[in-house]
């Protein structure tokens, strides 16, 4: 990353929210561009070269989902949805359209800053494909195709390995049920969320020291699963 101050593009039609983010983000070393509607957002996304985009879903001109869709046609810049809509199906839709994260209003500034930093970190190409992924006592080695918990080899079925691999590739980011089903079982099996849940339950018995309080394979209730990101 050549820029010292990352550029954040905030897309929100509420002036109060934009003012809050301006005052909340700039002291933490971010530059900020502001768009009040979808059209402006698409234009600024191309011209202001943001490192991360904060996108509201309820925009006056174009629906936020459409903005997201059109941005993803040409850009892979991290996009964080910031919306009052808290229904699971909307989170799922945004994540499947390519959003990196979803934060509901009202939100705490500290948590929001952490989410922005995590999205920026994930986007750095050198961390994108880890060959050996380590988080706490869990080691996922994609060269030897071995998974170790506290140094002990864990025997996984090919599908279990594939599921873990998918989550590791996106460590720290929620992968939706549909994305997981599609990745591991193929497009014919999307929709079988119940199947996935039972599968994850069995996988947790192998990789989690306390399967009832998972530490590595985390649930985003109603949305999907997330691999704990290394500190």
């Amino acid at each position: 990353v050549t820029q010292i101050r990352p550029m954040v593009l905030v897309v929100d039609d509420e002036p109060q929210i934009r003012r809050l983010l301006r005052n909340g983000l700039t002291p933490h070393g971010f530059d900020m561009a502001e768009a009040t509607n979808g059209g402006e957002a698409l234009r600024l996304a191309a011209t202001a070269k943001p490192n991360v985009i904060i996108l509201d879903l309820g925009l006056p001109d174009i629906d936020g989902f459409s903005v997201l869709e059109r941005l993803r046609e040409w850009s892979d810049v991290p996009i964080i949805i910031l919306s009052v809509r808290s229904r699971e199906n909307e989170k799922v839709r945004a994540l499947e359209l390519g959003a990196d994260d979803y934060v509901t209003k009202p939100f705490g500034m500290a948590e929001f800053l952490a989410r922005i930093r995590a999205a920026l970190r994930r986007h750095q190409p050198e961390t994108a494909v880890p060959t050996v992924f380590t988080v706490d006592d869990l080691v996922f080695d994609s060269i030897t195709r071995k998974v170790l918990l506290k140094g002990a080899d864990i025997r996984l079925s090919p599908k279990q390995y594939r599921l873990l691999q998918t989550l590791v590739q996106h460590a720290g980011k929620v992968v939706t049920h549909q994305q997981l089903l599609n990745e591991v079982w193929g497009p014919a099996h999307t929709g079988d969320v119940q199947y996935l849940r039972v599968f994850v339950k069995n996988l947790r018995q192998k990789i989690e020291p306390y399967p009832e309080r998972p530490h590595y394979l985390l649930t985003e209730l109603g949305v999907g699963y997330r691999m704990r990101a290394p500190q």
Partner: protein
Amino acid sequence: MPSAEAPRQGQSVGTDGARPCRRHSGRDRLTGEPRAPLLFYLLSASVIVLAASAAYLISWIVPDPQVAVLFLAAVFACAILWGLGPSLFAAALAVAVKSFFFYRPIFSFRVDDPRQLLDLGVFAVVAVLTSNLAAQTRRQTDAAVQREANIAILHTFSGRLAGIAPVHDLYLAIVEHLGRAFGHEVVLLVPSNGRLAIVADRLHDRLLTGDEIALAEGVWRAGPAVSTPGAATMAGRWELLRLSTARGSTAVLAIDRESHLNNPLADEKIHAALLDQAAVAIERALLATSLEEARIRAKAEELRDAVISAISHDLQTPLASIIGAVSALRRFGPLYDESSRGELIATIHEEAERLDHFIRSVLDLTRIRADAMQPRLEAVELSDIVNAALQRTEAALTGREVTVALRPGLPMLKLDVFLMERALVNLIENAIKYSPAGQPIRISAQQRGAWVDLDVSDRGIGIASEDRERIFGEFVRVGAADAKSAGTGLGLAIVKAFVGANGGSVETESAGRGAGATFRIKLPVASDIEEPAA
């Protein structure tokens, strides 16, 4: 010519829709009876032959018998059995046979005796009178049988319609019955919000185009009454019939004239009666629906009033604190020392969160009320829900010891994850609200037979036994005198509704005031969760 198609020879129309056989190709002009087939003439001839043989045998025993009487009886029988044509034929044949075999000159048709002419006349009159009488009787009998059959059909139909509660099933039954009666596939269109919509159609693919539905709407508004023959509106292959009662139109029936079903009921009167019955049944269903809607509206209004009065308190109290604290900080910020400023900011934060919490509760409640709450039941681990609820209440649980004891090996449950998480969050918040700071909270779960019990226990003020049911009502706050307990009064009502939507129930246990409380969510164990192969 006024006539039902009279089923002959004991044919009857049953509820199974058996159709009267069309045996006769034409109708007799005198009696209105269907014209007799050749067979009846042959049978009449054989009866006369029989009569002649009998007369011949008798003439061996009795000299000069009154053969005319025998032949008269034969003609009489023909008239009763086979109608006018065959009996007239029998009369003529009888006179011919009689004059040929029994009257001088024998073996000649010459008629010397004027009695022969008289006999011919008498036979003909008997044939005409008797056959007419017989035909009339037959018609009356047939009509009575038909009437009885029609009444049976209508009775069955109305009985079936009366026994159906779900409105969609009613529509399907109507389509099923009417389709069979008409001998065509039919589609039922019922008004909803001022427009007609297809509500039932047996094969699910016989759809009307937009233009055809527009035509149907025209029929529904001002179309001809159902029983007017020949006045039906056609829309493509659809014949459109208006179903109406004394109050007006209730629906439109579209009959697919290009489809054909076996064994229709050909009686137009019964068609009209069936349509009337259907119209009344639909009207009753629509009326019941609108009554239910009115009831819900009334309930919603009642709730809205309660919400408004609660809002005036629950929104304004935290807003007062926020505005007060903020204005103090803006105006006199530099005058306060560090700790006072910290206190004011903390007040703003806490009160804003209280507002947020209240708004979320009201939104939850509107979800229940708007009937939009259709739970999406999915297999889920209870631990996922417990962990998510704990995460959401993390800040409020600060300083408390939280014990989570989920019995290992709990089965997966079929739940709506959103509703269950909200219910559990509310129970945890309730435990926080009604127990002193620093007191532990325990969440435990275990299977008991076909149920999994999820308990949230606190060591708080407990619940008086008389309050155990009441606390699940809306806007009920027990012990609200304690300033800390100023909640929305909605939390437990939401718990009850959300758990109920998941097929579970919620109950409380408390040894009484001051003894702490346990809220127990009972959830059914699902039987149909398949384990995938690894």
